[in-house]
């Protein structure tokens, strides 16, 4: 028996919005510590790793570990039926191939429940290597979303160049080129608007904006986003989900074609 209730149902709705465009279906792994999900997009260019700790739910009950294969598009459709103030409860029996979502209004006079079929998804165990990154940039999530959206008008990839003074995003395409530079600023009053850079070594990397724009769908989850980079390794884009977990996106870089150069 698995049961998890989240008073702030809107958080789950936002989580779904953040992953449903990148992944069609995924397996949620549930154990006593919480719910987690790891999956790659169909082209194997990006990976999503999502964790929701048990402490965030009230109550949380997981008698034994289970894997729930879910069509995320369908799940998101059902979650659209919940109001932002509703609490969301997820239930799944030990046997059986369905999952139930219960939406309750704050004063408890409206209760709706939806049942959905589970899927059999073949999953591989994905091992994400631990890496120390040479640059870790924290910036306001809305700012990052704006940068990705603006630069995708110019070109299809963005080059992120991180130095001591700041971080520069640049793109070029048929119509011209564009650069956006953010300087480091530690604003004590407004923590959410700070741009901080922790750097061992300068690095320059290029990524497809298409995927970054998918990642930016997680912007409503968190005021700040963390970009971790090292030369020639995948980028990590992390959004904290309040106190209860995080969603991390890994993105393989674009590398200069040896044949072309």
């Amino acid at each position, binding site marked *: 028996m698995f049961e998890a209730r989240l008073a702030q149902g809107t958080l789950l709705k936002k989580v779904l919005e953040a992953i449903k465009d990148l992944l069609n279906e995924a397996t949620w792994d549930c154990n006593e510590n919480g719910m987690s999900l790891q999956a*790659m997009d*169909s*082209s*194997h*260019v*990006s*990976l999503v790793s999502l964790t929701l700790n048990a402490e965030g739910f009230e109550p949380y009950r997981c008698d034994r570990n289970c894997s729930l294969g879910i069509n995320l598009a369908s799940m998101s459709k059902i979650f659209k039926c919940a109001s932002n103030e509703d609490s969301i409860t997820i239930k799944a029996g030990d046997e059986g191939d369905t999952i139930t979502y219960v939406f309750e209004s704050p004063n408890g006079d409206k209760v709706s429940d939806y049942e959905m079929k589970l899927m059999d998804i073949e999953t*591989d*165990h*994905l*091992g*994400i*290597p631990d890496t120390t990154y040479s640059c870790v940039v924290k910036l306001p999530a809305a700012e990052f979303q704006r940068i990705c959206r603006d630069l995708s008008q110019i070109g299809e*990839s963005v080059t992120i160049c991180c130095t001591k003074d700041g971080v520069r995003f640049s793109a070029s395409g048929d119509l011209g080129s564009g650069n956006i530079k953010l300087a480091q600023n530690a604003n004590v009053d407004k923590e959410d608007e700070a741009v901080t850079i922790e750097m061992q070594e300068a690095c320059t990397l*290029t990524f*497809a904006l298409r995927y970054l724009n998918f990642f930016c769908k997680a912007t409503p989850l968190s005021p700040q986003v963390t970009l971790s980079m090292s030369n020639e390794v*995948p980028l990590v884009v992390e959004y904290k989900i309040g106190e209860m977990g995080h969603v991390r996106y*890994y993105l*393989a*870089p*674009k*590398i*200069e*074609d040896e044949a072309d150069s």
Partner: protein
Amino acid sequence: MEQMTLDVGQSLIGAIQCEGCGMTYTHGEPTDEATHVKFHQRLLSALKFPGWKNERVIQEFYEGSRILVVLPHEKLFMKKVNAIRILMDEDLGFVVESKNLQNSKTFLYISPDHQVVACCVAEIISKGYRVLSPDSSPMKSPNSSLPRPWCCSNDAEPARCGINRIWVLSSQRRQGIATRLLDAVRNHFIMGYQLSRSELAFTDPTPTGKLLASTYCQTSQFLVYKLGGR
């Protein structure tokens, strides 16, 4: 710029081979995936065989497979045979379209799940030429694992049935299907007469075809003949 992909130990990565159609393609590469889907569909639709009302079954097997024979004047049936022939020719590497199949019989092997999995075209011939064994061949390849040039004798020997082409779907090989087909050809090619294995001759075989021919004829010096000339 080239987009990299992630390798975190997933099972589907890089070049994979489709179990259904045998095509090798790169997983996650959009053009490759699209080409594969197209090829896969075309193959499956050509191989699909729901059955004919007045099909000529010459042999049935206990597990549900059967062998049919199609004669060249059966126009409607030949349409299906021609679709299979195109696939078969691509697979075997035939470049010339052989028009003259008037004296041939086509044998189709149908699997229990309604698919054509093997096909053999046999024709009437009068003579064949014996393959020279590799030891007597003047050209010795230093590496014996490589396919080496091989040749046949100039002296014609009598033969009755030419295996114009024989093909088994790549995923169904090594199950004795070709042997069953050749047995059926020997029993049913000439009315009321069972051909002996030594009366069969083959057109220039592929490496796997050569293996089949030498096993089936129980000698590496089986008979060959030239496509088109008889």
